[in-house]
């Protein structure tokens, strides 16, 4: 059939992609920063692991083999993700009372490397406006009807396994993420500034025990230290997790265990600008080589409920991934 159908040829991608990237980046606003910053920031402190990373927050650093990848959908709801207190601690109120999101991720792995993209989609952000000392704080009203197509702060990341063989008892790696500003700051879904994350990753498997941990730095230009509950600039990231694996039937396994993670502002190390959460997680996943499905569930509590750590949260995730 003679047709006008599009012609694509991968060879031209070598030219088309950089040109497209150049055009896209050339029009992206750092311009946005020319405006006086409105109140609000990216309140979500749950940064899902890279698609195929195994855990909810940590990473199994198990990239290996030929070209592979993963696609992930993670959704979550958190209750009271932002309670703010006056500087003297006498006043406290819930600025954000409900927050829900969906996060779609795509990862490509090759040998010991992984590149990935996470696209967070805010589904709900609501709260209470009020006055706290000298500050007039305005809560957002975000839902899928008012914001039908928002993508907030997508993340582009790169991870690498540095030491340790796949499935070994100790694997060390490192990763970097670029967080691209997107969305409305007043909705508490973005800082409207570029951010970056650098993490050292550790993970291992010993018999039926799996563990993982991370230490890192969140490069965060927004510093509103004068406003209660707001970002104080750069942050340290930390976390660890452990799980026991239970084979449930041929080709499938269940892993159950906790994940702990948090962040603290560099300028006020482990002071009031620290949030710390614990998650009890369970995941059902295929074992062995080939394409698999992983279903994850988690319920968590803000152990130090500050700085964006919620009172409690629930999480659900599903991943399609290839293990080679």
């Amino acid at each position, binding site marked *: 059939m003679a047709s*006008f159908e*599009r012609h694509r040829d991968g060879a*031209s991608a070598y030219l088309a992609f950089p040109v*497209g990237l150049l055009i*896209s980046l050339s029009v992206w606003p750092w311009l946005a920063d020319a405006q006086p910053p409105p109140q609000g920031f990216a309140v979500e402190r749950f940064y899902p692991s890279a698609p195929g990373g195994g855990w909810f927050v940590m990473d199994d650093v198990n990239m290996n083999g030929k070209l592979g*990848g993963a*696609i992930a959908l993670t959704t979550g709801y958190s209750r009271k993700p932002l309670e703010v207190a006056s500087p003297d601690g006498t006043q406290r109120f819930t600025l954000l009372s409900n927050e829900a999101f969906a996060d779609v991720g795509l990862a490509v792995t090759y040998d010991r490397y992984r590149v990935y993209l996470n*696209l967070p989609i805010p589904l709900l952000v609501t709260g209470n406006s009020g006055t706290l000392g000298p500050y007039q704080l305005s809560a957002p009203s975000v839902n899928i009807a008012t914001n039908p197509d928002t993508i907030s702060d997508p993340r582009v990341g790169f991870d690498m396994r540095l030491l340790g063989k796949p499935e070994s008892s100790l694997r060390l790696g490192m990763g970097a993420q670029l967080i691209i500003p997107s969305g409305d700051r007043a909705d508490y879904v973005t800082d409207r500034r570029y951010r970056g994350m650098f993490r050292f990753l550790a993970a291992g498997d010993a018999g039926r025990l799996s563990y993982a941990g991370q230490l890192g730095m969140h490069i965060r230009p927004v510093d509103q230290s004068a406003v209660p509950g707001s970002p104080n600039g750069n942050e340290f990231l930390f976390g660890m997790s452990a799980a026991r694996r239970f084979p449930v039937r041929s080709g499938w396994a269940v892993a159950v265990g906790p994940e702990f993670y948090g962040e603290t502002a560099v300028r006020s190390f482990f002071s009031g600008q620290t949030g710390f959460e614990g998650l009890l997680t369970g995941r059902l996943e295929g074992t062995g080589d080939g394409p698999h499905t992983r279903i994850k569930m988690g319920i968590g509590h803000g152990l130090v409920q500050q700085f964006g750590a919620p009172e409690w949260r629930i999480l659900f995730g599903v991943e*399609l991934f290839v293990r080679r």
Partner: protein
Amino acid sequence: MKVLAARGLHDIENESWNAYGQFTYISSWKPRFPALYTNANGSINSLIPDPERSFTGTATLYLGVRLWRGGEAYLAPEVLSEHPLSELKGLGGAIQNFELQKGGGETPELYHSRAFVRQTFGFGGHRVVKESGQLQLGTVYDSRRLVFIAGNFSILDFFDKNAFDIDPRQGLFSLPFLTYAAYDFASDARGYSYGGVAELYWDDWAVRLGRITPPKNPNQLPVGFRLGRYYGDQMELEHKHRIDGQDGTVRVLAFRNRENTGRFVDAVAAFEADPRKNATTCPGFNYGSGNANAPDLCWVRKPNVKMGIGLFGEQYIARGIGVFSRAMISDGQTEVDAYTSTDRSASFGALAKGFLWSRARDVTGVGVNLGWISAAHAEYLRLGGVDGFIGDGSIKPAMESSLDVFYSVNLRRSLWLSGDYQRVINPAFNADRGPVNIFSMRIHGEF
């Protein structure tokens, strides 16, 4: 994907996933044009007669994954930056660049244009090979199949697909060639909707049904999810045929929207009964007209029904050369809710690939669009009213017509540079203004 497939790393004919992307930059320039008046009596919707520039830049990533047997999921994040002519006011159907969105700005904005799931149930017939592409996994379907789609999409992904399946970003620049100018399909300000579509393919026949979300207020981004109360329904019947060995398609499309809109006669009646109910005193959402002596639709918005029916035909006449035409009549009683201010439209044109002159990847085309508004719409505009796009403060009603001619040079295999000329006569259906000449260029790439 072809690179991966060539290296044995990807099965492009039976894909479990794929990823494509595109970028498009369109720049337009409009020289000065004659106009007896502009924004008369405090109106705000005239095309400015002074020279103006406009641009759009988009970049889109198309991700697809197979979920299970017959199940596919697609996601398309997109970035848009734009600067329209006259803030996208003053043209009826003849908006010069189909990429323009309401409410966009020069600050690039990232959003998900599509996020939907498609489930196909095969009923036999012959094999239909679908090549890997944007929003399409490479696969084989039955020619007899039932398809369900749910999620967030453009209704034009499934209904009234562009002539010859040509990517609009490679075709005619002007908006009325994207679909019927009078097809006021329910959508948000960007042109996307939530909802569901069902398609039944039976060899050469196809029938489609869809219900989608309208905007909460006309031409705005927030959408209403009460699909039992407000909705856009459409039905399409399609038949593919061959004439003298050349493929062709005929479609009939009907839509029925129930939306929170205003009827022109109601707005005029409300104003005539009480002149205090004018454009400057609106208690609710309106377009900000400063004409205190004009009716305004905001006073009469309530659940109203808008209907239309259209006919589309396309026919190849030689290798890579085809002609198309489409025409639609809507009832023309209510304001534009999402697409264009046109109440009745007809367009025709031809598209050709460069086989004849040994440049097979070049594309050229010419199209003519004709648009009309209803008598009630014209009376509302004559009294100084405005809708989402037009309203010069006065009007000498006339058919708005536009000519669009373009040529796309294929620079590399997936990179095109295009030039385009458009001439718009009676912009905004007003014989007191125009004609308008618009010159555009486009660079488009895919990866």
